[in-house]
């Protein structure tokens, strides 16, 4: 029977902290990509030009309906044979970001639909360009209400980063299982720590999101 070894914990902790940095980096970059690309999809889907809206809808549907793991394998193992070679981290960030952009696109869509038509009409009456209409009139009203929903996807994506270990990114689970565990044959401590780290950070982020949400609701009531 294996029992908990604090010495071992302290000795391996630095490795896990390094791995946590990789996980956080992948999450942050992935979310950056997901947040931008998702907005792009959402706006493209609303376009009056079918040549724009239809492909955008199709791509989003395709991304959402295929597993992230398969997409990661494609990016990392299949793309090189098509002449595109990506580092594991790059493939991981792109995979996460693109996959989650299909979810954030829906979130943005809800936000855009929440902006009254009169706002678009006022922008037309003032002869604003399409770009100014979006950037200065519509998005500043569409995005704040959906920030909590975007935040929830950030947490969800964070919890999915262990999938990146499948394409050799040295994130938390990879380090715990394939480095520390495989070398010492002790899995209890590293994997428990990984679980705790995910738990604590997820709870913290969820609390933050709730805080932002509460603040937003208050503001809306005040208005």
């Amino acid at each position, binding site marked *: 029977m294996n029992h908990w070894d604090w010495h071992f914990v302290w000795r391996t902790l630095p490795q896990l902290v390094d791995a946590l940095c990789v996980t956080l980096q992948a999450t942050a970059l992935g979310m950056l990509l997901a947040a931008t690309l998702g907005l792009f999809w959402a706006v493209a889907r609303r376009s009056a030009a079918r040549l724009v809206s239809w492909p955008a809808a199709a791509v989003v549907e395709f991304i959402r309906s295929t597993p992230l793991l398969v997409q990661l394998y494609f990016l990392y193992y299949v793309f090189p044979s098509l002449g595109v070679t990506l580092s594991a981290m790059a493939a991981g960030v792109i995979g996460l970001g693109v996959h989650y952009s299909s979810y954030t696109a829906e979130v943005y869509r809800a936000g855009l639909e929440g902006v*009254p038509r*009169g*706002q678009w*009409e*006022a922008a*037309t*009456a*003032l*002869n*604003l*360009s399409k770009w*100014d209409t979006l950037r*200065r*009139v519509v998005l*500043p*009203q569409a995005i704040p209400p959906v920030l909590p929903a975007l935040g929830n996807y950030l947490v969800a994506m964070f919890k999915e980063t262990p999938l990146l270990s499948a394409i050799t990114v040295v994130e938390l689970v990879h380090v715990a299982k394939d480095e520390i565990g495989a070398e010492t044959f002790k899995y209890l401590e590293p994997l428990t720590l990984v679980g705790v780290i995910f738990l604590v950070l997820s709870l913290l982020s969820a609390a933050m999101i709730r805080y932002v949400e509460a603040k937003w609701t208050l503001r809306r009531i005040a*208005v």
Partner: protein
Amino acid sequence: MNEQPIIELCGVSKSFGQLRVLRGIDLDINAGQHVSVIGPSGSGKSTLLRLLMTLEKPDAGTVRIDGDYLYHLDNTNGLRPAPPRHTRQVRAKVGMVFQHFNLFPHMSVLRNVSMAPLRVQGLSKQDAQQRAEDLLGMVGLRDKLDSYPHQLSGGQKQRVAIARALAMQPKVMLFDEVTSALDPELVGEVQTVLRELATSTNMTMLIVTHQMRFAQQIADRVVFFDRGVIVEDGQPEVIFSNPRHDRTRRFLQTVLEAT
């Protein structure tokens, strides 16, 4: 004598599904005219304004603003549909004020008014703000520059919206039931602003309203719409005291009894 009208509609039709909202409207409006557009709800008067502002597209017919086709390009071999860029250029001469104000809630009053001159006309920030301040002064809101729309009463909001539209210096102003969403005691302040605008400028104004007395006072021409056609078109005194058509008479009777 025969100057070019600033607005020319020729055979303009518009349907929403089965509903024919405008049925071949012909209408010329000269520069500087103040036209009240009256008629029952759903008669097509708001749609007319929305077509002039390009918020709806006509199914048939042509619209000219100050000589330029709004939805068409005039080639040697006839008219063809205009690209959005052209439409945008022509509609710069038109401004509109809405029933529900449609102010930008995330911008201060000053920014609501100065944004379009800044972004669209390329004014410097200073000039755009100066113009906005002057116009807000004109509508009696110089002390509200830094307020946000939600801090204003309905009448104040609508006055900001009027200043915002004027800031783009349009030749034609469209007013779409601008007092209909206001509490009764706030109607007066907005009507006063419109009256001042009508007497102090020679801006062309199209005013859709259900307030008959106001329609009569402000206009030098009244157009009566019913079921998508112009039934009667003439001087306010004539239309309100001695309409030629039965439908006009019946409509006026109904609304005047109601108020």
